[in-house]
């Protein structure tokens, strides 16, 4: 840990344990006394929210696994058994299905927050990279989880996405056969997806530990982007941030509960309540909402380029959109971390980038026809141009605003401003007596 340990074992048993396995010290230093910048806003609560999401997914998932049967003849039926006959089974399944969506809402906001405040910049590159690894693992887990109920969208989504691997030159077809465990999406596919769907969350949990470790070496970034200079800039994590994160988590739970209890199927597709049928293709095959931006990029490439077929082109573009995120810490050439101290142009381009991602998501849900393909091409192009051209150039060209000397100076000046506003005598209507 980057700060000196202040843990003092309070009892004989703690002293005994501390000499042998200082696990309480680890917990205390990481989540008790850990010095945290005092100016973190609510955008910084998504880390805590995401850990809660992971725990919810694992707990509900293990309970569902106790009642689920990974076999093409029984999978759909066993899900209905969970919904109808298992005590609180409907709540467990709806919590797990909507929990995935909540997880992605939180992770997208967490990532955009990192982007806006330049959280990935030196010395937090590893933190960001591990985060991208977690994101990719999440996508793989969610994709395989959606296949398990073995409804129409499960089956056809799996067919479409796994078929993409055949576009890879030389090894593509063998890779696809390996994924399928045969020559079509069938029982072996369902079995291996189930095994991997159970495994990957634990890899995510491991990566989360690394993510927190990589966070605790340099310490938290913060909205000013100015590093912690003295003790005055920080607060112990507990109770200051446990209570702030705690409040954010409860508010997030209200959103979660609204979906879980009142509109549990609104984020899913009705076709997934029809058992998988290899002989009937659904009219529109659409993935879950959180994959739509990437699906739009995949479908945007409807032309061959040199020796690259449109299919391979789409796959390259889609995977590049994720891979490129690994290089973000070096693509962003800005002298300051936070957009707060960057030019208006930088802020506007950032807003456009966010809008572009949302637009891509909308496009992913439309039919693959003109003009949506053209829009997808433009939006995909902008996604890459922003990250590869605009972001580096902005950093080189712009003159950032003056940074505050320290976090506490910034906080104090804000407080003064607020005080000045509230100190202004307000014209109060005096009641005539």
């Amino acid at each position: 840990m980057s700060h000196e340990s202040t843990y003092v074992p309070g009892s004989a048993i703690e002293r005994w344990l501390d000499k042998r396995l200082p696990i309480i010290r680890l917990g205390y230093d990481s989540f008790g006394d850990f010095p945290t910048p005092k100016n973190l806003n609510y955008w910084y609560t998504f880390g805590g929210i995401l850990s809660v999401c992971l725990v919810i997914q694992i707990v509900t998932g293990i309970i569902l696994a106790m009642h689920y049967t990974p076999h093409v003849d029984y999978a759909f039926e066993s899900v209905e058994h969970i919904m109808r006959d298992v005590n609180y089974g409907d709540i467990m399944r709806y919590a797990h299905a909507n929990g995935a969506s909540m997880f992605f809402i939180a992770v997208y906001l967490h990532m955009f927050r990192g982007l806006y405040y330049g959280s990935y910049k030196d010395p937090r590159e590893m933190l960001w990279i591990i985060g991208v690894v977690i994101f990719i693992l999440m996508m793989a887990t969610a994709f395989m989880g959606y296949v398990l109920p073995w409804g129409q969208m499960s089956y056809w989504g799996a067919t479409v996405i796994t078929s993409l691997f055949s576009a890879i030159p030389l090894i593509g077809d063998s890779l696809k056969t390996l994924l399928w465990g045969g020559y079509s999406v069938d029982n072996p596919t369902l079995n291996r997806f189930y095994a991997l769907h159970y495994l990957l969350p634990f890899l995510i949990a491991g990566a989360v530990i690394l993510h927190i470790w990589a966070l605790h070496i340099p310490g938290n970034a913060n909205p000013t982007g100015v590093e912690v200079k003295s003790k005055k800039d920080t607060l112990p994590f507990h109770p200051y941030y446990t209570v702030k994160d705690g409040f954010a988590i409860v508010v997030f739970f209200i959103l979660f509960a609204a979906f879980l209890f009142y509109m549990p199927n609104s984020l899913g597709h009705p076709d997934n309540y029809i058992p998988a049928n290899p002989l009937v293709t659904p009219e529109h095959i659409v993935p879950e909402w959180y994959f739509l931006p990437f699906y739009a990029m995949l479908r945007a490439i409807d032309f061959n380029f040199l020796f690259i077929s449109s299919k391979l082109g789409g796959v390259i573009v889609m995977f590049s959109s994720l891979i490129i995120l690994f290089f973000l810490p070096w693509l962003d050439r800005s002298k300051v971390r936070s957009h707060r101290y960057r030019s208006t142009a930088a802020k506007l381009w950032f807003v456009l980038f966010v809008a572009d991602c949302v637009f891509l998501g909308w496009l992913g849900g439309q039919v693959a026809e003109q003009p949506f393909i053209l829009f997808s091409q433009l939006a995909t192009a902008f996604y890459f141009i922003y990250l590869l051209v605009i972001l580096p150039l902005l950093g080189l060209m712009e003159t950032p605003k003056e940074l505050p000397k320290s976090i506490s100076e910034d906080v104090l000046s804000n407080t003064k401003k607020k005080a000045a506003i509230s100190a202004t005598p307000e014209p109060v209507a005096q009641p005539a007596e």
Partner: protein
Amino acid sequence: MNTIIKTLITATAFFGLSVGIANAAGGETKELKHHHWTFAGITGAYDKESVQRGFQVYREVCSACHSLDYVAFRHLGQKGGPFYMEKCPEGFPSTQDCRQPIANPIIKALAAEYEIEDGPDDGGDMFMRPGLPADYMPGPYANVQQAAAANGGAIPPDFSLIAKARHHGPDYIYSLLTGYEDPPETITIAEGTYYNPYFPGDSTSLLKPEYVDDEGHVLEGVKVPYGGVLKMKAPLSDEIVDYADEETPETVEQYSEDVTNFLMWAAEPKLESRKRMGMISMIYLFIFAGIVYWSYKQIWSDVDH
């Protein structure tokens, strides 16, 4: 800055174009009828009597072709189900707990009206016996091939989840059942198929030749009718089902409403307990959020921020 504005203008222009194109496309269905459902909303609950009548409609009409594979007789008698009993009727021994579907006299009698194949017996033969509450509802066909053969190649879908397996399921079912009409003048339909403006399909291919040019394009000014054709003829007609209760009208609208309520219950039998739990959770979460927010303000009160 100029580029941003230009991009925005172009995007808006394209967006407008796309909307225009979408409106011109065929294969649209008529806008669904928006019915008020008692199970909608945060305090929604099933209209028990309507679900009971809906079950009667299902049993006497729909079940001739449509199975209900995931619904067992006992489900009808569990809490939230149409025949749930809070306590046994007069004359039953006090030891009998009619809240249990297995002891519910209506469910027992209902199940016994069905013949269920069981076995093999000690001699190795399958045999028929009266149904028990634990049995699942027997379907009309032995297998999908038989179902297809009996319906001109179309397989009648299972009804257990139909209300969730269609976009806006309840409104769709209601609209479809009440929406059968004579095919518009502009199309010809094959024998054994029936036109319905709410059924997803594309009626472009059904247009009479005089409305289409040599290359198969629809002539200008010709409106492609909504919806499409299906192999199920209008299943309901007035007075087709005889309701025991004299006051409920025996009309297609009423039957459709009742059977939709029943099918929604079949798809989502735990809806009521889920929404009740939601209410409790929400109240809890709002109070808890208030307490945590107050704690947050307290704890942070000594910090300049």
